[in-house]
């Protein structure tokens, strides 16, 4: 299986999944194309660019600067500000807290160092709190180990570990953008899961990693941070489901043509040399399930949308339009049914009747308007 995935990807190391990528696995689980590419560790962003449909996800440097500055501020002086917030949000009289910067040991040792520190902390029954800054967790994704390098701190208190997630979107009068909070919760759930895996490996009770995550954001219009507890149990359940699904990608891969590959054929300097049309054909060999929501979640969205347009798919118009159309998959088929230009196939009687009547009603109501020349 691993060989097959390696062949699909070509002779480059698999793209490491960060927490954001892992969290995004649940964005469109019905999409076989995405499942195969993710399982094989293909660089979707580069692939999309190479076939001429670069992803629309630019980041403003103002946003990046602001995010970094806020994170630095929260972590300043051994997370002093964070400690104040945790006292508030966990309602605990925490006297003082130790601070470990795991990155002190250098990148290559960070994971084993994190393991050691967490192991030691889990054995220690003391009640003193500890921050672990820059920890490095590992999580097995479809046979590959992904290292998770969070802007996140694990906080241990009284034997329980809390994941702290620092985000720079504001909480205004107690409310934050629900889409951003959801994304933060999904990401934090990845860390909770990785921390639980680590505790399990070390022989500790994995449930000592709390499902309550501490979200730290700027409050109102200032830079002052505020903390809120997020219950990520639902996100954890979804994540477990998606990781289990990844393991089942085998069936999908087995049905693909033997010679299929998404290899970009990079030259010595890393520039892709694979003919774009050939790569596009290869992508086309795995069915996508395009939905407009992909536009905010997948690097390949423009490619898939273009493909959906080329075949006149009703998916283009959104899930709820598609839903209204019952099983009719293409625009031309739906219109032909509506206009009586096509005999309904088996099981299409109802939708045909509905669309025909809808057409008649529109004609009845719009009659005359056309004459006025109004659009």
């Amino acid at each position, binding site marked *: 299986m691993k060989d097959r995935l390696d062949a699909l990807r070509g002779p480059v190391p698999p793209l490491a999944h960060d927490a954001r990528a892992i969290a995004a696995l649940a*964005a*469109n689980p*019905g999409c076989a194309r995405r499942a195969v590419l993710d399982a094989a560790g293909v660089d979707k962003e580069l692939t999309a660019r190479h076939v001429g449909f670069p992803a629309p996800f630019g980041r403003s440097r103002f946003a990046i600067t602001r995010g970094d500055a806020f994170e630095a501020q929260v972590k300043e002086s051994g997370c002093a500000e964070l400690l104040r917030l945790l006292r508030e949000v966990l309602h605990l009289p925490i006297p003082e807290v130790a601070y470990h910067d795991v990155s002190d040991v250098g990148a290559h040792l960070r994971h084993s160092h994190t393991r050691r520190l967490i192991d030691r902390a889990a054995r220690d029954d003391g009640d003193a709190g500890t921050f672990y800054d820059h920890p490095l967790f590992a999580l097995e994704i479809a046979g590959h180990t992904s290292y998770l390098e969070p802007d996140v701190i694990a906080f241990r208190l009284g034997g329980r570990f809390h994941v702290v997630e620092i985000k720079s979107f504001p909480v205004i009068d107690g409310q934050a953008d629900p889409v951003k909070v*959801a994304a933060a919760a999904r990401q934090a759930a990845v860390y909770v899961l990785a921390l639980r895996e680590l505790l399990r490996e070390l022989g500790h009770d994995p449930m000592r990693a709390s499902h309550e995550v501490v979200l730290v954001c700027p409050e109102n219009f200032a830079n002052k941070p505020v903390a809120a507890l997020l219950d990520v149990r639902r996100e954890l*359940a979804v994540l477990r489901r998606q990781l289990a699904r990844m393991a089942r990608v085998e069936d999908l891969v087995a049905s693909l043509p033997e010679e299929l590959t998404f290899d970009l054929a990079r030259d010595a300097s890393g520039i892709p040399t694979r003919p774009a049309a050939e790569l596009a054909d290869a992508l086309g060999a795995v069915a996508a399930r395009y939905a407009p*929501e992909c536009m905010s979640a997948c690097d390949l969205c423009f490619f898939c949308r273009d493909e959906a347009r080329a075949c006149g798919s009703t998916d283009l118009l959104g899930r709820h339009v*598609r839903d*209204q159309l019952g099983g009719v998959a293409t625009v031309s088929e739906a219109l032909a049914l509506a206009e009586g230009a096509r005999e309904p196939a088996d099981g299409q009687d109802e939708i045909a009747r509905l669309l025909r009547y809808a057409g008649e009603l529109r004609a009845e109501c719009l009659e005359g308007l056309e004459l006025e020349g109004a659009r």
Partner: protein
Amino acid sequence: MTAQAAPEPVRSPQAEAAAVVEAVLADLPRHRGVVVDSPPGAGKSTLVVRAAGHIAATGEPLMIVAQTNEQVDDLVERLAAEHPALTIGRLSATGYRAPERVFAHPNVRVAGKVADLGDPAVVIATADKWAWAGDRTWPWAIVDEAYQMRSDKLLRIAGCFERALFVGDPGQLDPFSVVDGERWAGLSWDPLQSAVSVLLRHNPHLPVHRLPVSWRLPASAAPVVSEAFYPFTGFRSGTDHGDRSLHLTAGGMRTSYDLALEEAAATGWALYELPERHTVRTDAEAVEAVAVLATRLLQRAPVAVSERGEHPVGPSRIAIGAAHRDQVAAIRAAGLPPEVTVDTANRLQGREYDVTIVLHPLSGRRDATAFHLESGRLCVLASRHRHACVVVARAGIAELLDAHPSAEPVQLGVPVKFPDGWEANQAVLTHLARHRVTP
């Protein structure tokens, strides 16, 4: 309470339920509010009637709040029958005509104003009516179906009482609104939250009791419903596998419909699974299957045997449930006896039948919305029956769930609702798969 560490003896469901009721009654004078969670058919009305008698016996006046006129009339009828000496006032809006079952009791008086009721021991009305009932303060209130009551309704009437018992089923459908309530998300008094959640957020120390036994659901259904929809609290059935049975006394014809009904009669569940296809909401084949199953069931002359004895299951003891109103309309139009109840999950809340036939909310769909996945909707549909439940669905729901994108927005300060609709649907589907019959 004893300090012994000895394992608790296995108690009969009757004893277990009675102990909870006693604890509730004992808590009443000690707290300003008491909440009782009641899973489907766990004797919620019995508790209300019992508590009403208990409070009335102290001589203090009591107001009872229910959510619909039908619920009010049900309560009046039961109270009047079980406490014939109790004077009961039924407060109603103008234009509402109380049915015979309410008028039949000599101890019940109906009026549009409290003053015209003649100072009864108990006054019952809907929450809407109470909101107009004036400024008298009652020492006691019982709020029924409190999880289906929106908190803005409670706000309008909470000034009427000093202390209250809140009773309801947390697993059923949450209240909703036609307007977007994002503005209030996270507020402890969010008007779109249920009365109980707002009450408990402001008064976290109030006691919450749970009725532990469902007297409605048979032994075949209680574990399924409990695990899928009440994963943390749970409940059991009051009857055992041998206590209930459903017999189809007229012979069948070995059609798939007969097989499904026989499966349901024998095991309490059947999944009548139509071939996979994405359809419009009012899927004609599914609608027809539902109607034929109901008709066929009546033709098979079913007889229900239970702890209450033996009785034929007539059309009034059968309900058909669906998610959408247009589905209900389509099923009604399919020519069933008018006594068969056909309704949406919203309107089936709190009701009980011998056999239910359910058009699965996800049948024929390509994508699920939050509406279709809402655990309360499936919970209502899967927990109305005393004997058997037949679910009609197109194949493919497992694949739909598998492909469902998880991107629900998350609001700060809003407690996560359990169970998750996805998980609940998955649990029920896994169970139903063991009772599959295909045409």
